[in-house]
Structures are given as C-alpha cells and as structure tokens.
C-alpha cells in the first residue's frame, strides 16, 4: 500500500446528512456511513450511502442497536458495509468531537478498522449558504496509531473529497428550497413506522 487512505463521499450520502442536520438545527444529530473500497483503487474508500439516525437522546443504546441491525441487513445484501459515523453538534461554535461520537466510532472500527468519523463544520456550512464553496462542509476524523480520533488536516493532497464536484451546488439549491423538510431519520421511523428511513423518494 502506497500512501494514506483517501475518503470520497457521494452526493446522495453527503446531502442527506447535511439536510438532516439542517432539519434539526437545535439538536445534536447523527448518522451512519455506508460504503466500500473503490473497485479500481484500494486506496480510496467510497462512502456511497448514508442513513440519518437520530435527533434526540443520541447516547442511548436501544434505538442505535435496532437501527444498526436493520441497516447492516439492508445494505449488506448490496455489498456495502458500515464504514463510518456522522455527527453534528448541538451548538454552532462547538468544534469538538464528543465522547459519544468517539464511542460509536470505536464500535464501528472494531468491524471496519479504517472507519471514518465526519463532524459537521458549521462555519463552512454557513459560508456555503452565502454561496462560498470551500469543499465538503465536514471535518474528517480517523483513528491514529494510539487509537484516538484525530482530525485530518486539509493540506495539498486532500484526503477527503466530494465524489461529484457539483455536490455543493446541488446542496445549496436544496437548502434554498428547504428540502430538509422531506428528510426522514430513524427516530422519525420509530415514532411512525410508515416513515421511510431509507429516504428512497427524497431525490425523485
């Protein structure tokens, strides 16, 4: 293996996660990332799907366990594994990765050692809403040798990129049209099982 692992997030997954955070501006939200290694290049991990999980009491186990069971079941058939975790803090200026996020990240790492944790970057998201595109509005964290979660610094060779370069443009449009009203998370599903946590109709 040559260099370090790169992470690439697909538009559908990226937009779902950000819309979820925007729907619940006053809460912590989280989600699960699904993907696989790129077929042509084992040094790239493609995050092709995401499931928004919860917007309330995210540190409780039962809903998380039920969600992961069903998510693994559904996506396993398609050859996708749980490859990471997304987290958005409650407060605008909170840029730290909290313990709950680290714990879930650790749990996912047990089954997928190169798991990624993505933290919503509120400043970048705010800039995007005023039309400034600064790349993905998330901070990537990976586990280092000491098994701690460290932010990956954006330098010359970007380790975290958007698969589709126009993803931010599409996201910006969705924000303007308040598309976040339509997003469904696992919390919504548990409150009303007729709500589809796969969001299959979202982008139609």
């Amino acid at each position: 293996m040559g260099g370090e692992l790169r992470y690439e997030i697909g538009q559908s997954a990226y937009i779902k996660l950000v819309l979820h955070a925007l729907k619940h501006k006053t809460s912590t939200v989280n989600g699960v990332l699904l993907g696989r290694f790129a077929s042509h290049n084992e040094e790239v991990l493609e995050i092709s799907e995401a499931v928004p999980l919860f917007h309330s009491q995210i540190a409780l186990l039962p809903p998380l366990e039920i969600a992961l069971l069903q998510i693994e079941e559904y996506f396993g058939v398609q050859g996708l594994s749980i490859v990471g975790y997304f987290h958005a803090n409650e407060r605008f200026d909170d840029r730290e990765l909290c313990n709950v996020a680290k714990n879930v990240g650790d749990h996912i790492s047990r089954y997928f050692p190169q798991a990624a944790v993505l933290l919503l970057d509120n400043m970048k998201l705010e800039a995007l809403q005023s039309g400034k595109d600064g790349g993905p509005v998330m901070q990537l964290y990976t586990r280092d040798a000491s098994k701690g979660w460290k932010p990956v610094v954006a330098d010359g060779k970007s380790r975290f990129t958007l698969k589709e370069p126009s993803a931010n443009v599409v996201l910006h449009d969705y924000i303007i049209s308040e598309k976040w009203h339509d997003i469904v998370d696992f919390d919504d599903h548990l409150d009303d099982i007729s709500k589809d946590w796969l969001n299959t109709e979202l982008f139609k």
Partner: protein
Amino acid sequence: MVSKFDELELNKLENQVDNGGGGAWEYLCLVRKLKVRRSDKVLKHGLSILNDPNKRSNLGGDEWILYEQVAIAAMDTQCLDVAKECVKVLRKRFPDSKRVGRVEGMLLEAKGSWAEAEKAYSSFLEDNPLDQVIHKRRVAMAKAQGNTLEAIEWLNKYLEIFMADHDAWRELAEIYICLQMYKQAAFCYEELILAQPTVPLYHLSYADVLYTLGGSENLQTAKRYYASTIELSGGKNTRALFGICLCTSAIAQLTKGRNKEDRSSSDLQSLVATALEKDYKRRAPSKLPLLTSALRSLKLSS
C-alpha cells in the same frame, strides 16, 4: 411534550397559514399554548400581523403578547434587529415591567453578552428569588456556552426549590444522558415516574437508560419498564416493543450456560415479535423482511 393529535392540528394550521389560507393568529396562539419551538414561522407570521396597522389594532391588548412572542422568535433565528425593535416597543409601553426586563435579558443572551445577561439576571433574582423563568435562563446560558457541568449545577439547585417541575427533571435527565452519566439520568426518570406514574414516555426513557447501563439486574428491570410502557400506551409503542426484544436477547446472552429455561420470557418475546410483524405488515410492508431478519438475528444471538 406534545401529543400526536396536537402536533397534527398544529401542522395543519401551519400549512394553512403558509399557503395563504389565513389563521395566523390562531396558529400563533396554538404555538404559545403548546410551547413548541417554531421560531422561523412565528417570526414570519407574527411580523405579518405586527407590520399591518389594521391587523395589529384588531388584537387589542393581545398585541403586547405578540410583540413578546415575536421578539423571542427573532432572537431564536438571530434576527436581532427585529428583536431589538420589539423590545423597544414593549419597554415604551411598560416602562417598569419585570416581564419586559426578562426579554431584555434574553436579548443580551442572544447577542452573546453573557456577563451582562448574568448581571441582569442576578439583580432580578435579588428582588424575586422565586422567579422560575430567570432561574431557567441561567441554566440555558450555561448550556449555550458549553458549560454543561455548570448547567447541571444550576439545574440541580433549581430542582431543590422547584422539585415538582417535571420539564426540569426531563431536561436534567437529557443533559446527563449527553454526558453519558446514565446512573444520574436514571435517578431523574425515577423521580418522574414517582410523580407521574401513568406517563409512558418516562417508563420508556427509564428502560432505555437501564438497558444502556447494562448488567443482568438492569436488563430485567428495563424489560419490566418496556412492558409497562406497552401497557400504558395500549400496545402502540414501537420503541418499547423493540426494547423487549433487545432485553430478551441480551438477558439470554448473559445467562447462557446457566440452563435457565424461562417459558414466560419466550412467550412474551413471541407476542412482541408478532405484534411488530403485524404492525409492519400493515404500515411499512417494504420493511417487513428487514424486521423479520433483525428479529431472527436477535433470537440467534441468544
């Protein structure tokens, strides 16, 4: 806490007003009554009334309540100019009011002038040591600045005086959960269940916390509280049904090799599984296969 019925009614009204069908004042009153946080809508529709002199005079005395409501909504959506204007109007009309003083304190908070807000609130409390709203603003300020431990301290002090404030107990439980202090969260839910034993939400949250804590005794208790949630909610609570499955599976894992055959436990498990499958078949048929395999893997792991 808003019931499903109330939420449906609120959403219906909101849709109506959003699409130009009128009813803005009824919507704003309902938002106030249910104490929900819909600040962007409140701001939009509230301003449409306040900026129209005819509509405003039709409100009579209620005009000032609306100014207060819009001011707070404006602060929540960071439209501080609007908030300032509303507060100015209120201050002019009620020059000595403590209630307006509270809103002014909140404006200081919204601007991020924490020290000034703290000063204002402290002096209020000197004159009115039993002002619940101001006590709660202190907790909110600590939370907003990320001083979660300080928020806990203030909230505990508040609850020593106002121990019947159920919302405060819930808030404290939720803060403890965020910090993964599950034992302390469990204590809060115990207080709530003692005070209001027929509210299923408290049983459910208590069960969730106990399951998260883990250990054989906690799991057994969690299972009992999931069961009581199901009973209190007429069997309609999906989370509680799943909770029973998780508990049964986890308990069986812990007692593996101890040859404990619990007929009643497996009966309960199959009842719950049947209930879940029936519900999914009716309301989410596309997800039924996922549910079935999830239940199967829980049984397998036991």
